């Protein structure tokens, strides 16, 4: 099987001419299917830029990004939206749930934008319920985000990331807004997902969180310093 992510000689330059800032200066990354990878690096290292490009929210200036067998580095906005919907599941630091919607409706959102399958309301609801049950929230379907604890909210977000069955999960500081007990819960869920065959790429600046991953990629000054272990960050 080919790797899920292959990044070759990727650069990202913001601004032009003299004001140009190089955020990524030639990066090569490969992530195999089923891997659990942590990305670490100090502020301004380029890890956020790398994460944005991995999440198809931004395009690299040059280089190739082959995601699940397709070069997505220079796709149009509409094509990127389709890739995000089909290939990626996002977990954010601040959960990003819509406050007026129930947990169930929040999890159904990605299916609303599914361009490939026309999912009926019943099917969409059934999948969302299954997804919420898989993260242990089967009894909280109709709660609003403000009726749930931080850990529960992040579990709703994980259920949402899983519901379109994407081949890659991207987690951006998934425990950054949580207390240590909830952090453990969330990491347990990510472990379970990994054990079930999911591919997870997680950005974090906490060593003990990064330690949950099989492999740590350390980014500094727009380059991969050490693919395997990251001694110090910040």
């Amino acid at each position, binding site marked *: 099987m080919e790797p899920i992510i292959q990044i070759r000689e990727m650069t990202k330059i913001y601004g032009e001419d003299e004001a140009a800032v190089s955020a990524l200066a030639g990066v090569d990354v490969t992530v195999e299917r089923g891997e659990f990878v942590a990305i670490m690096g100090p502020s301004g290292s380029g890890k956020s830029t790398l994460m*944005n490009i991995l*999440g198809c*929210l*931004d395009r690299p200036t040059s280089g190739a990004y082959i995601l699940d067998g397709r070069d997505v580095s220079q796709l149009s*906005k*509409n094509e990127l*939206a*389709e890739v*995000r*919907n*089909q290939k990626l599941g*996002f977990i*954010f630091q601040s959960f*990003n749930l*819509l406050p*007026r*919607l129930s947990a169930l409706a929040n999890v159904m*959102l*990605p299916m*609303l*934008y*599914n*361009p490939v399958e*026309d999912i009926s309301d019943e099917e969409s609801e059934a999948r969302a319920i299954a997804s919420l049950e898989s993260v242990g929230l089967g009894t909280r379907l109709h709660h609003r985000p403000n009726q749930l604890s931080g850990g529960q909210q992040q579990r709703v977000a994980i259920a*949402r990331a899983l519901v*379109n069955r994407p081949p890659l999960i991207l987690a951006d500081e998934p425990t950054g807004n949580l207390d240590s007990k909830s952090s453990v819960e969330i990491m347990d869920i990510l472990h379970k997902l990994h054990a079930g065959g999911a591919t997870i790429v997680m950005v974090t600046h906490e060593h003990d969180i990064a330690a949950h991953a099989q492999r740590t990629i350390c980014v500094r000054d727009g380059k991969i310093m050490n693919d395997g272990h990251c001694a110090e960050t910040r």
Partner: protein
Amino acid sequence: MKPQKILRSAWEGLMLNKVRSFLTTLGVIIGVASVIIMLAVSAGTEAAIANQINALGANLIIVSPARGIPGAARTMLIDDAYAIADQVVGIAGFSAEQTPPPLTVKANGTSLDSIAVIGTTADFPTVRDYAVASGRYFDASEDERKAKVIVLGAGIAADLFGTDDPLGQTVTVGSTKLTVVGVMEAKGMVADVDYDGRVYLPINLVFQKFMTTMPVGGDRVRTIYVKAESQEKIPSIITQINSILADRHDVDPAKPDFTVQTQQDIIATQEATTAAFRDLLAWVAGVSLVVGGIGIMNIMLVSVTERTREIGLRQALGARPADVLMQFLLEAIILSLAGGLVGVAVGIGGSYLFGALGSMQTQIVPESIPLAFGAAAIVGIFFGYYPATQAAKLDPIVALRHE
């Protein structure tokens, strides 16, 4: 993304802020309602004018001295009316009319000042579709020999004689004693003329008794009403009258000192005046619709800013720019269509209310409903488009970080 799903997202967006959504639609409601009410008011005014003119009688041709031509008022004489009656083919009757200055009318110990006295020829009731209620109208021979007879308007009869029978009684008009031969049916106010508050005399008697103080021409007439046998004969009758009168007055037919009009001509002239008024009202109403649209745009821009993170999240989950655009555009369109629907209801209700409570007559113009509703929809699309493009243009990375 399926249309009904976008529609649902848009609806949820609006329900987030019910009071604000309602206040936003208020502008459109007022705009649409005022378009309908304004048009109903001006249509009602036009209908009232048309009613008044049609109340003159059916199939009438109205001959009167031309306005603005010196001496024209002096050239139209009772003989012109007789000539028309003799020579024109296709007429059912004619009524020449003249009005001396108002006079005092006395009878039975009661005196009424400033009463309009109308001298007419004998065909007046049939030509003007105005029947005699009791007694009879004077006939042509009475007119010719200036018989001292009078027909009372219903109101005058009541004022002078109360419940007594006025027929055969004597009435003094000015200083002339006249015998009552008939009372007209009650007709009320038509075109600001109180038909019931007038008295009707043979026109030749009027010439003899009441027009002698006039400087020249005691047998001048103010108006000749000619009744056509049928609608189809009207054009031919107009041609004949034009040629007879031009000949009799010895004027160039291209520059006559008289006018020959149908009721339709008069209605058309009146409508030309009310059209300007109607257009002004429509513009004012249209402006309020635009103001309503600007209100929608304002609120949609606020909404896009408030919901920047939501937009970023939707984009991250796979919403294309077009999906975001449609969601916000639909919100604006729902607001304006809801405003349009309520506005139509308020407009119809308001029109009835205006007609029932005010002195103004209103008549709802059916075309104004799709017009106002369509305008509301266009306002929604027009003023919703810019905020929606602002939403669709957002960069998901920036939007997701928005606080």
